[in-house]
């Protein structure tokens, strides 16, 4: 009997196994319960997959969307509705990156003690965007397709995020079939990749600074065009012999095409990877569309890639993060759309020395090419881009960079689809929005 009594301890082993399993369950329950409860099949929080209750505001508490018993009520102001639609999201979840989907864990009103009990206590989410700034950007785009975004380089908070085309969620059009609404559900800032054009010369410059010891002293000749192997790369002007500083300011194609060939396709690709242009950047866990750099053994392909006209594409979100990295001496914070968002991490995208050199070159661009009057009272750093898209269409206009004023550093990215020349089409939008961002 003594023997059997001892052996009955096997029961304790089973109880311990159960306790271990329950420990894992409880750990997950308290860590992930908020997320579990926000699953769209949970009928306490959703009706047919549509969130019943919740409220989304901008950073100043301006209400952008109220959900009550499954009824969606957007802002009373039309421009606010149109300009914040992609940030806030639509009722049917067609805009997959909308806050009503991404932050639903917080919108359900879940709390650990009560779960979803009395779910009419709606959860509230304050976005980091400033509705006023969004309206401003929307007006500056003036109906053209594209994306505008501004972020705080210290915190990673997105202050402005507009994607065009948009539609009024309070009175949606009968049909989205017309070209006017092409890709209307896509947040172009986060979920599109475009040919970068000349803004990619910053990547080529960064690659050169790290692979060629004499990069800053090197000169190349521009005769309005240059020979790469048997082919020709054309330039917008005839620039003669120029240094990297001068070449970036005038955005010389010949200089950067030849530089890219000397840097080599491998180093170009490595730089694109290091700047996370070819991978997703994450905004509160939502991945951006990946850009692309196709490594080629042909010198001509490498030359075209060096001026952003090859196979390469970039996502505006990744470009914005790259700008934040240049502003932050190589280190960029993780992007967030939440006011006082989750304690985000940061990542080093490029060496401090490279970042400082690029910053100096970009400021020189503003001084010598775009004019400091574009950003009154702001110390600005910028690069324009005019990305040829072919098919007889106007090129995409880019304007990217950052500005410093009163101890704040704000990075921006502006993309105007088929907008024409970069500095004039996108530059004015950037000027408008950045000025407002610092003043507001």
């Amino acid at each position, binding site marked *: *009997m*003594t*023997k*059997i*009594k*001892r*052996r*009955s*301890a*096997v*029961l*304790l082993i*089973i*109880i311990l*196994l*159960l306790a271990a*399993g*329950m420990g*894992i*369950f409880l750990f*997950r*329950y308290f860590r*992930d*319960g*908020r997320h*579990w*409860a926000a*699953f769209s*099949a*949970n*009928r*306490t*929080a959703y009706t047919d997959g549509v969130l019943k209750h919740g409220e989304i505001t901008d950073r100043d508490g301006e209400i952008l969307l109220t959900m009550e018993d499954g009824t969606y009520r957007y802002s009373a102001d039309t421009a606010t509705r149109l300009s914040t639609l992609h940030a806030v999201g639509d009722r049917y979840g067609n805009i997959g990156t909308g806050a009503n989907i991404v932050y639903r864990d917080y919108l359900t009103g*879940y*709390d*650990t*003690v*009560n*779960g*979803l*009990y009395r779910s009419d206590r709606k959860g509230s989410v304050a976005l980091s965007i400033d509705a006023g700034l969004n309206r401003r950007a929307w007006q500056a785009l003036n109906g053209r397709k594209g994306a505008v975004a501004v972020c705080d380089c210290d915190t990673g908070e997105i202050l402005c995020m507009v994607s065009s085309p948009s539609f009024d969620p309070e009175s949606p059009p009968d049909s989205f079939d017309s070209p006017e609404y092409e890709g209307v559900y896509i947040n172009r800032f986060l979920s599109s990749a475009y040919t970068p054009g000349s803004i990619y010369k910053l990547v080529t410059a960064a690659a050169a600074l790290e692979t060629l010891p004499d990069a800053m002293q090197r000169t190349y000749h521009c005769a309005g065009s240059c020979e790469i192997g048997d082919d020709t790369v054309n330039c917008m002007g005839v620039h003669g012999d120029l240094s990297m500083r001068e070449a970036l300011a005038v955005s010389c194609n010949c200089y950067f095409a030849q530089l890219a060939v000397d840097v080599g396709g491998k180093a170009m690709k490595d730089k694109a990877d290091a700047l996370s242009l070819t991978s997703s950047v994450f905004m509160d866990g939502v991945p951006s569309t990946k850009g692309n750099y196709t490594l080629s053994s042909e010198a001509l392909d490498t030359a075209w890639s060096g001026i952003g006209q090859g196979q390469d594409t970039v996502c505006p979100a990744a470009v914005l993060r790259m700008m934040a990295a240049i502003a932050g001496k190589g280190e960029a914070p993780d992007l967030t759309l939440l006011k006082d968002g989750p304690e985000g991490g940061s990542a080093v995208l490029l060496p401090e020395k490279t970042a400082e050199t690029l910053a100096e070159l970009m400021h020189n661009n503003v001084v010598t090419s775009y004019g400091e009057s574009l950003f009154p009272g702001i110390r600005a750093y910028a690069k324009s881009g005019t990305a040829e898209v072919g098919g007889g269409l106007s090129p995409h206009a880019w304007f990217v960079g950052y500005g410093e004023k009163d101890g704040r550093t704000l990075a921006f990215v502006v993309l105007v689809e088929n907008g024409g020349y970069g500095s004039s089409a996108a530059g004015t939008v950037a000027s408008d929005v950045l000025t407002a961002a610092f003043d507001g």
Partner: protein
Amino acid sequence: MRATVSAHVHFMIESVYKALETVAEWSVSFIGKRAETALFFLRYLIPALGLIVLLRCLISLFREDSRPERWGRLVLSGDVTIPLMHWENTIGRGRSCDIRVDVPTVSRSHGALIRDNRGGWTVYDLSSRTGIEVDHKKVDGSMPVRPGQVITVGGLDMVFLPMSEEEEREQAESRRYRYQPVSQGFTLFLLSMLQACFFLSFFLDPSQPADGRILLGFPCLAAVSWAAYLFTRSIRRRAFEAETLALLLTTAGFAVCATSAAYEMTRQILFLIAGVILYFCVGAVLRSLRLVKKLRIPAAAAGLALLLVNVVFSEAVLGAKNWLSIGGFSFQPSEFVKIVFIFVGAATLDRLFTKKNLFLFVGFAAMCVLALVLISDFGTGLVFFVTYLVIAFLRSGSIGTVFLSVGGAVSAGLLAISLKPYIASRFSGWRHAWDFPYDSGYQQVRAMSAAAGGGLFGLGAGRGWLETVVAANTDLVFGVVCEEEGLIFGLTMILAVILLGVYAFAYAGRARSSFTVICSVSAAAMLIFQMMLNVLGSMDILPFTGVTFPFVSRGGSSLIACWGILAFIKACDTRQNASFTVRVPGRRKRNAADVDEDVRIYVRGSEAEHD
């Protein structure tokens, strides 16, 4: 004539439903908005009462005077006395022998000294090297031994002095409860309060129409609870902890049934009554080891026959063909085979040392598991297998045997999985339920979402949505309980089952026979393991195998069988007048003819084994 009677009964029940519904509607409209306030408090009262009932059972089990019983002594020369603490005592040199004789001439497990129901003692020679003598006559296999006789083990003489009937009566008297720190009746009263809370939750809820079937269910549940208690008291037994824990779990099961399948409420009551009756029947059998021994082979045969019928005639429900339909009444044979399985697996000490017995059980277990694999009831097969491991370990004590069985089973299991795509699909999504929320993880993610939605105190009885998911009230029942009654109440249910296990473990050392120890420990292991598969399976920590949560999951077969299994756990409780499955010795006059019969049975049995 019969048709008219049943029509009358039907009409009467319907009238009761109608009346209850009318009263409920009237009450809700009368108290109006205060109904919500009442429901608000009920939400906290339900987990609180559950916890208090659980705690009172815990305290009651461990605060009561439970000194071990004594049954006699062996006197060696020089006034050395060895007490006999059990009905079954091993003699030998081994450290874990009950009667330890540390002399080189004694084998490690030399012999056994065993008492039967009627107070007769028998000495067994467990194939020792030097043999055993009684009054200097060699014991061949076994021999009855009378008070005052000298048992010689390895040259050492011991005078055998069992307690007389008079002494046994005195012992019983001295161990009788002087006071009871926890009143069982009051604990049951609190449980009835809990049942009343559930009743009120459904009665007062303005958001859903009152349902007479639910409203009648809870009073009936309380009535069955009290009937079981009064019956226990009427046969002069006082302990009611195990029954209270089972009733607590059954109450949660009724709440699940009410929210998910109100139309089943009436049947659920009948199932509970059947379960409680089965509980007392199994317990009655366990009172007599002699009866147990007679019933083992027929029980094993009946169990196998049941499974065989199942394999041949079963219907597939959700992939597993574990349902059998007879005359419109469908049941799961495998649930009842669980009772037989434990019954067949357990053995008295004298049989533990004979290999033949173990082989018979191994064969029986293998056939059971094979039958369950054939009908694709993988989860139940696993429960049987783990129970088998526990019994095998309790009987042999050999880790080696256990590991060998595990190895064999894993390869057999892999074979089964490769042959059965339905089982493999259950494993494919395991631990990745959230990656497949619309196919292989469908049920689990919904269970997790609902459980989290309930928070610590639940949404309120009847106010969840998980019951609309397939198998919610059986396989996902933990999710339903957590959603409606909250995490605290859900954990209380788990602790209640664990407490049954702790109960079995704590009293294992004081049990009279190894048979009851094996019964109670393996029964507790079976219930706990099955619950573990259910809870952790639905929460995506273990593979989702679709077994039931003991007492809580809806389903007649499962509920009835769980009550039957509960009797095994109760059998180890040797507190005075505690368990009805344990006889109070010395109450009945010993009959000389009976003693002789006992002896003959033992002798016949041992001859058969030693041939």
